[in-house]
């Protein structure tokens, strides 16, 4: 018997090939799903992604000063530092006119930028501009612009000032990144260490890592037994005890930080109890807050729930029979724990550990309030430059480096746990 297989395409009732029709429906479904997500995606893009991108651009942006001194910089680039000690006459001439005719506010902004490169620029330019304006007013044209400048101030004959232009003559500059790592450019444009007294960022970066690692370890030590207890108790008890973990999680960060100040300060609760118990004398009260210890204690308590919750969710599903089986086969409890139980909790440990670590390196509020002088983390510098010094380039560069570090760790987190597996409470 012969079976005839039709080679003709399957058609829908409308006469369109089925394959095509299905593909069309699939496309429509995709579009519908996307349209639901689109408003939020657009919103997040405009209100969040673009600001972050803007910050990244700002961290390398050096265009403002280039718009103030375009001709000077153009001529400056032609200066051969090997043969001439000072820049050519043309540089002085262009600077003369750009200072005389430039917008005062823009020049002011540029001066701030110049001072980052070499301190002293601000007063030098201000003084010079005043003199230049006088000359222009008189209407006389100087014979040699170079001589005029040097007559106004002898610093104009000092090549180190001119060398510092090197790092400003391009629209983009990596100077802020180097600054954020305690480095700067020397006269030849090579990267060198900052002056001793201006080196503070590497120290803070290292402290940020140190504090984060300590907090992660403390959280693990404190969180592991608690998660184990919660995972192994009958539900009606563990749900009750879970409140102890979730309530701090839901309480305002500032409230928890305030609470720690009240607890730890010199006439605070803990010192009071210790004095009352006679462990320490009244004038021997321990300084526990406004230093690194305060930061460590407060951050450990604040981040502990982020360690306990992932550990709990992993431990919850480890069958209790495993430990019994191991012991049944002759393992001592310690061996059974070490060889059978602990390896199964590794996903929880890594998830909780990464989460706590990543949150800790970006922390700002708690270290700022309880850290005092030697407990502040890198976030405090970002805030300081954003609000106080207005050195936004450096602020953005510090932020960008921090963001880069975070992304590496989140990439790891995503590999191990999966970002969309984040659960709340």
């Amino acid at each position, binding site marked *: 018997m012969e079976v005839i297989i039709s080679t003709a395409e399957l058609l829908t009732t409308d006469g369109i090939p089925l394959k095509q029709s299905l593909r069309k429906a699939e496309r429509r479904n995709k579009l519908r799903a996307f349209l639901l997500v689109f408003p939020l995606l657009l*919103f997040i893009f405009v209100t969040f992604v673009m600001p972050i991108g803007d910050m990244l651009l700002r961290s390398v942006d050096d265009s403002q000063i280039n718009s103030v001194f375009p001709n000077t910089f153009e001529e400056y680039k032609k200066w051969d530092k090997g043969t001439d000690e000072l820049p050519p006459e043309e540089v002085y001439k262009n600077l003369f006119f750009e200072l005389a005719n430039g917008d005062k506010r823009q020049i002011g902004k540029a001066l701030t930028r110049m001072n980052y490169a070499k301190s002293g620029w601000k007063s030098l330019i201000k003084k010079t501009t005043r003199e230049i304006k006088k000359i222009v007013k008189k209407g006389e044209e100087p014979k040699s612009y170079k001589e005029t400048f040097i007559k106004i101030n002898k610093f104009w004959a000092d090549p180190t000032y001119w060398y510092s232009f090197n790092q400003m003559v391009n629209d983009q500059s990596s100077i802020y990144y180097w600054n954020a790592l305690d480095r700067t450019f020397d006269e030849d444009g090579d990267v060198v260490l900052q002056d001793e007294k201006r080196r503070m960022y590497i120290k803070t970066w290292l402290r940020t890592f140190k504090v984060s690692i300590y907090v992660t370890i403390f959280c693990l030590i404190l969180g592991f037994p608690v998660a184990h207890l919660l995972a192994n108790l009958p539900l009606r008890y563990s749900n009750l*005890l879970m409140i102890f973990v979730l309530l701090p999680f839901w309480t305002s*960060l500032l409230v*928890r930080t305030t*609470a720690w100040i*009240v607890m730890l300060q010199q006439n605070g609760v803990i010192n009071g109890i210790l004095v009352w118990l006679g462990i320490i004398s009244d004038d021997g009260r321990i300084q526990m807050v406004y230093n690194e210890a305060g930061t460590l204690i407060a951050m450990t308590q604040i981040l502990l729930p982020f360690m306990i919750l992932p550990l709990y969710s992993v431990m919850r599903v480890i069958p209790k029979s495993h430990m019994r089986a191991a012991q049944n086969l002759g393992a001592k409890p310690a061996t059974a724990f070490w060889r059978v139980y602990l390896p199964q909790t590794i996903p929880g440990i890594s998830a909780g550990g990464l989460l706590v670590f990543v949150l800790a390196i970006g922390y700002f509020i708690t270290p700022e309030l309880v850290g005092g002088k030697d407990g502040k983390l890198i976030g405090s510098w*970002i805030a300081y430059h954003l609000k106080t010094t207005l050195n936004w380039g450096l602020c953005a560069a510090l932020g960008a480096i*921090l963001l880069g570090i975070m992304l590496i760790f989140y990439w790891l987190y995503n590999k191990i746990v999966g970002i969309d597996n984040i659960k709340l409470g």
Partner: protein
Amino acid sequence: MALPSYATPVQRTYYYFYLFFCTVVFFFLIAPLFAIIPISFSVSPFMVFTEGMLAWPPDPEAWSIRWYRNMIGDCSADVVSSTVPCSTKWMKGTVNSFYIGTIATVIATTLGTLAALGLSRPHMPYKGLIMAILISPMIVPLIITAAGMFFFYARINLVYTFTGVILAHVALATPFVVITVTATLVGFDMNMVKAAQSLGAKPMRTFFKVIMPLILPGIISGALFAFITSFDEVVIVMFMASIDQLTIPKQMWAGIRQEISPVILCMATCLVLLSIFLLTTVELLRRRSEKLRGIKAR
């Protein structure tokens, strides 16, 4: 979890040590929150347990609600103290916090729920990437977000405005809504949608009559998360809000920095009570949601 009857003395010691250790950690987690409550009722302007408060029998002179009266803007002679200024700032902050929080919550919940519905569809393209972008405001450290937003919003004149603060808070709050609602939609029986549509319901009607009642607990939980995110947020308001947009956290921050006073503890006590209330609500909603979706109560 109880100790088996054949446990050796060493095991017993370990076990009791383990229980003791866990108790200490629970105490460590919760004690600071509750230590501030009695101090907020102290009559003294210093944030300490005074001798009168610890005396037995209790000394009514040592306790008072004067700092609470100060907090609500009552500046009578028996309330003010030389070290504690009295102003209506706390009340103004409360009004602003609720105003910003409510608007931010409504926008965040709407956008977040729509997105979660889209993300839960099987046809969603680039799901991982989009999810990562949507979650990112929760992941990026607040100080970086604040810096970026401050630069960007300054360009478009949104710094020091309510609009700017609200937009920023919506961005921060949506990830919580997306996560909570997506979690509720896991295990959602899509056949119910098909059933509704085959019976002739339009998409809108399907959503409001079928989907929404089932995922409502998740939406409300998400909204509460969004609200508390905005309500407790301090870093953004520190940079992006002027005195006009003073919120509770901003005022607390200023208080802790400058004029550390028991009034802060009164507000902190109120916030602890608020978080207890929200936690209870979310927990009840979670149970209800599991019941609705037919997941057996654990």
